[in-house]
């Protein structure tokens, strides 16, 4: 069973408007991409890992009750979707999608398998996890892309990461952070929704 950020939420009056996802929407395992359903066995092929972090708002305080949605390729870099030319070879045991939400400290956690990179018309894409953030005060959603520290060379060649101003690129590369509860490697990245130019997470048009 995967841990789920589930601490009691801090009552904050100004948070009572806007997308106010009921906690009853979330089930243990929604944040586990290695299963096709929260109560299904782990069927994804590949090396499990954890992606954890905090969502922070202006001033560095926690962004409570935000929803994060993850989407990524399977271990061989394929997506089970017709816009991937190799989609029929994609891992049938891997959904590639999961949802997590932040607790009172702004913490979130995903469990997944290491995504593969792939060659695209615009260049070689490094292994990455797409994240979208939804929450009170965020109209629509904020989209970004998280890279992993083990793939420095691929990251340097990634057409999306390298399109950012150089000082901002490290803001999208997670750091190695020991192991998760099951012994799988853990990577961490904090997402600062608004802050100094040097620290604010880069987001992409969606």
């Amino acid at each position: 069973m995967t841990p789920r950020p589930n601490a009691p939420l801090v009552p904050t009056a100004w948070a009572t408007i806007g997308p106010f996802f009921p906690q009853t929407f979330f089930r243990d395992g929604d944040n586990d991409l290695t299963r096709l359903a929260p109560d299904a066995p782990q069927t994804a092929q590949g090396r499990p890992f954890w992606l954890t972090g905090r969502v922070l708002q202006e001033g560095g305080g926690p962004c409570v009750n935000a929803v994060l949605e993850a989407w990524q390729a399977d271990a061989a870099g394929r997506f089970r979707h017709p816009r991937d030319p190799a989609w029929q070879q994609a891992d049938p045991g891997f959904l590639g999608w999961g949802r997590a939400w932040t607790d009172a400290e702004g913490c979130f956690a995903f469990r997944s398998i290491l995504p593969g990179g792939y060659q695209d018309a615009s260049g070689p894409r490094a292994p990455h996890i797409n994240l979208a953030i939804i929450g009170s005060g965020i109209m629509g959603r904020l989209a970004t892309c998280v890279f992993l520290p083990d793939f420095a060379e691929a990251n340097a060649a990634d057409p999306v990461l390298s399109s950012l101003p150089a000082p901002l690129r490290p803001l999208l590369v997670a750091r190695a952070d020991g192991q998760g509860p099951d012994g799988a490697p853990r990577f961490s990245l904090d997402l600062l929704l608004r802050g100094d130019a040097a620290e604010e997470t880069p987001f992409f048009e969606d």
Partner: protein
Amino acid sequence: MNQPDRFDPLDPATQPVVPVPGYPNTIRRNPSRAAFRRVLTRTELTGPLDLAEKLRPGDDNLAVLAPGRMAQGQLIHVGGRVLDEDGRPVAGAIVELWQANAGGRYFHPIDQRDAPLDPDFIGNGRTRSDDSGRYGFFTIKPGAYPVPDSGRWWRPPHIHISVLGPGSLMRLVTQMYFPGDPLNAIDRILNAVPDAAARARCIAGFLPPEAVEGDWQGFTHDLVLRGRHATPPL
């Protein structure tokens, strides 16, 4: 790929302008920097085709918590179609809905407002659009609620709706309003959308009683996921 690698850009007049006065999260949580444009590769163009295993539907009646446990309030049915940018039905979309109770209070630890909780109302549901893109919920009409520390801003009765269509480009989080409510015209969130026609797409249609087969009020509300006629994200 033969498909276009980008959908038509959204008209900014149809997108809410932030910050919204009296709604500090629209400052604290919105980037100060404009979003970066990126080349679109398959990672941005794909997405999960069917989330029914992961996000199980089948919870489309919010008005009845359990047999014999009816929520308080006006019984309503909210239904419509999920549509793509060309007006084609989107089948198999997961539609999630959440709302305040008839007294305007959410069943949520964050909502500590001094209004009654209804022991028979949780206020969220999930369903899946059918082959013709249709979705529907039985629920009760939510109450209006004042926004704390906002200078007497009241949210009109509204229902929050989230749609997960096939692929990441088919994602919408929005709010549905009720036709004819005097608070609609002064709601700061609805009015954050500059274009009047786009605002109107957030307001449900009222079904005349003879068009409804049961003893509830019927509202109709289409959800357009993309394109020039997209439902604004709220």
